[in-house]
């Protein structure tokens, strides 16, 4: 290749790299002044920053099988993916990512999110809406003797096994679990499945072994309504989960708790409702939902059914005039069940209790997007504050600049003129690497940034190898021109072999790495390629230019 073509090729590479990095118009979701989001064209450098550099949230979701087996997980996940995607699209994040990873996981990435808990709730909420009529047949009262007997039975069996229980707990390492279990088995036998976060309140419960079930509940004002002291909730929930109690429950009825606690005579109480198991209608037919505030009821969510749903709803409610209708969301009764005055058409509303408008708008959002076909649990969360990400970027850039300064210093002092050529090569190296990253749409992560800074130090290695070879050839008394040629030729095998083996390691990292490490591997690969091109081709051309312009007798400053 003649010198002319070499120079043209280098200029072409520089132009292509410049074009790859030139700020361009991209369509992006951007925040508008009133807090909404819209698609807009933004001019920016096309290098994407990873979540760890711009702040945001990464979620990995899995099918939650703790409440029942899911037959076809992959299929259920596909349907869940659609719902999650719809919800996220409406949630208002710029450039969200929702994708399936493998057969059993959904990855959600939300850049720049500032309220991670809210985001999590929006993603995870099942949003299964049901309308159920409260029981007016006093079914629970009739079943109480049976329930009490069942509870007594549980207490007895647990009491007999209580002697063996401490042996198990002794093997449990953490003091927290041991304390929990011993407290349960001695004081409150049946509550051994109580959740750990209620451990503190457990001791406050009056020993229910004698009172059984009926002692824990108090009749409420409307049919099917009961009050349970907040402290007794874990106990009653654990009773309800046992098969014996479940068998004793009135048939065709379900027990649901209210969503909020209320103060009654200095004690916190939760409402508990006995409802007809068959819902009169579900959220399936819902077409719209929006948040609103009402002067009498506070924040509400207004919803609307489609024609078919409206017809069904009118039909059903006309059969239940003067009954109370519970609005059940994810097995929790929202607000106090209103009495049905007359047949309700296609519109209705959910009162949000004391929750704010944001909660109402989030609920409206998930209702609109539809319910999740399967419950999801969060397998992994990473959340990085935007300021921490920005901090990482600025620190990374500082470190990079200092690394460049140090490397430039070393090369200039040691190799002088040739060192300067190497530095020109290094500048192009940085340009090419960034361009390659932008071109492949790679995401720049913090480890990637670190890898890039590190590669600045390693990139000159190829130059060093060549320069040392040229020095050796010069020491053997060869002319400058031959020494340069021979130097490049002899250094080649070492450069190729060492770079290829590093590239192989990087490829393995890419294949088996996840998230940030993948970013690191991509940076490494781009760096290796760019460093070989600059050292072997670009710096060589620089030498050729220099040689063609000077007399061959001139001494080389190296």
């Amino acid at each position, binding site marked *: 290749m003649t010198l002319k073509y070499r120079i043209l090729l280098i200029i072409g590479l520089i132009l292509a790299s410049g074009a790859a990095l030139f700020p361009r118009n991209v369509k992006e979701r951007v925040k508008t002044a009133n807090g909404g989001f819209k698609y807009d064209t933004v001019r920016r450098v096309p290098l994407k920053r990873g979540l760890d550099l711009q702040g945001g949230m990464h979620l990995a979701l899995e099918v939650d099988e703790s409440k029942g087996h899911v037959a076809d997980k992959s299929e259920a996940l596909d349907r869940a993916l659609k719902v999650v995607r719809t919800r996220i699209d409406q949630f208002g994040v710029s450039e969200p990512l929702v994708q399936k990873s493998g057969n059993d996981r959904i990855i959600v990435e939300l850049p720049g999110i500032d309220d991670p808990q809210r985001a999590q709730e929006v993603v995870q909420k099942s949003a299964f809406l049901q309308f159920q009529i409260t029981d007016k047949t006093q079914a629970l009262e009739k079943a109480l003797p049976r329930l009490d007997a069942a509870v007594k039975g549980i207490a007895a069996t647990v009491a007999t096994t209580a002697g063996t229980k401490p042996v198990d707990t002794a093997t449990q390492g953490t003091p927290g679990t041991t304390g929990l279990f011993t407290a349960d088995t001695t004081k409150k036998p049946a509550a051994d499945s109580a959740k750990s976060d209620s451990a503190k309140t457990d001791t406050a419960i009056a020993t229910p072994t004698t009172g059984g079930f009926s002692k824990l509940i108090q009749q409420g004002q409307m049919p099917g309504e009961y009050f349970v002291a907040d402290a007794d909730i874990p106990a009653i929930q654990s009773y309800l989960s046992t098969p014996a109690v479940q068998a004793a429950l009135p048939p065709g009825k379900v027990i649901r708790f209210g969503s909020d606690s209320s103060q009654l005579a200095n004690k916190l109480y939760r409402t508990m409702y006995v409802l007809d198991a068959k819902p009169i209608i579900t959220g399936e037919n819902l077409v719209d939902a929006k948040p609103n505030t009402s002067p009498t009821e506070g924040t509400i969510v207004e919803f609307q059914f489609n024609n078919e749903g409206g017809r069904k709803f009118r039909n059903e409610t006309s059969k239940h005039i003067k009954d109370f209708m519970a609005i059940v969301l994810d097995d929790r009764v929202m607000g106090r069940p209103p009495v049905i005055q007359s047949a309700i058409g296609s519109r209705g509303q959910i009162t949000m209790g004391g929750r704010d408008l944001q909660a109402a708008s989030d609920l409206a959002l998930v209702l609109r997007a539809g319910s999740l076909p399967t419950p999801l649990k969060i397998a*992994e969360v990473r959340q990085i504050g935007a300021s921490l990400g920005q901090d990482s970027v600025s620190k990374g850039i500082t470190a990079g600049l200092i690394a460049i300064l140090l490397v430039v210093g070393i090369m200039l002092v040691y190799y002088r003129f040739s060192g300067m050529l190497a530095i020109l090569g290094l500048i192009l190296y940085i340009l090419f690497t960034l361009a390659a990253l932008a071109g492949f749409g790679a995401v720049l992560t913090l480890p990637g940034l670190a890898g890039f800074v590190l590669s600045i130090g390693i990139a000159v290695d190829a130059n060093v190898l060549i320069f040392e070879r040229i020095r050796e050839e010069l020491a053997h008394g060869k002319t400058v021109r031959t020494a340069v040629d021979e130097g490049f030729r002899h250094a080649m095998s070492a450069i190729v072999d060492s770079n290829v083996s590093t590239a192989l390691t990087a490829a393995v*990292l890419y294949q*088996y790495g996840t998230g940030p490490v993948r970013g690191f591997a991509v940076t490494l690969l781009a760096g290796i390629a760019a460093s070989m091109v600059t050292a072997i081709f670009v710096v060589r051309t620089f030498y050729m230019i220099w040689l063609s312009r000077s007399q061959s007798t001139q001494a080389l400053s190296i």
Partner: protein
Amino acid sequence: MLRILHDTNIDFIRWWKWAVGLTAGFIAIGLLSFLINPRINTSIEFTGGTMMQVEFAKPVDVGALRSHLDKAGILGAEIQQFGTNREYTIRAQEAEQRGAATNGAESVAKRIGNLLTQQYGAGQVRVARTEAVGPRVGDELTRDAIIAMLLSFLVTTVYLAIRFEWRFALAALIATGHDVFTTLAFIKIMHLEVSLTVIAAILTVIGYSLNDTIIIFDRVREDLRKGRKESLYQTLNRAINETLPRSVLTHATTLAATLALLFFAGEVIRPFAWVMAFGIFTGTFSSIYIAGPTLLWIERKWPRKIGISKGSSTATRTSPTRRSPATATR
């Protein structure tokens, strides 16, 4: 012309026994500290659990913070200062919290977050970073990290066997394996946190050390081709001496970049930079003192004969037949 260590003729290999003793001692210290305290400081990504980085408006007492957490039932959480005394990382990796994480990885984080705002007041504390990982994810990551490490060994060994010869490949593999052990010992002694980023650093060290070994072996290959009347022992020493200026320069620039990362790139990247800084030393060391003597030992055990050795090795083809098995002992 500024030259460092130019035209040296140092008998490096002569000291190999001392060198092996030194490195064996270092690995032994690492192993000993592992036997005394088997806990390796692995990050949330691998163990599962919850990690939070929190920033307070005012300096906070660690003891008070710990007792708040203990009272809330988050037992055995590890609290570490992160940079200034206003920033801390809280790690809940105990079995109980891990169990809680199975039901939803975020629940512990939520509890800690609520607790902190309760204790210190809203606006006084800010969560800069949260990582919560269920146990299954951690297991997968561990598996993937081990696969990545073994696979990178395999592919580079195969590549070297093709480009050089199996003896060189094996020697380079052993030298690199040595680097993994010394680096792990270093991580254990320094009590660095093993995160995905640190795994990436270990793999980079492997690559870097391999680079260094290849540069020396490339010289050996070339010198062997010249067919000098000298033993492999002498050839090795010559190759090391010839590549010495390059080694010094490249290590200097790499170290410069690593130090820039160590001091200026912030707390998150520091473990990565520490491993890299150590890796530069162990990589250089092993290229000279592990790869070289191992090659001599392999050469003595399985002397090369013309035409028999496998692979399209150029070194074998041109290596002088008259040379007897390398004489490593003196």
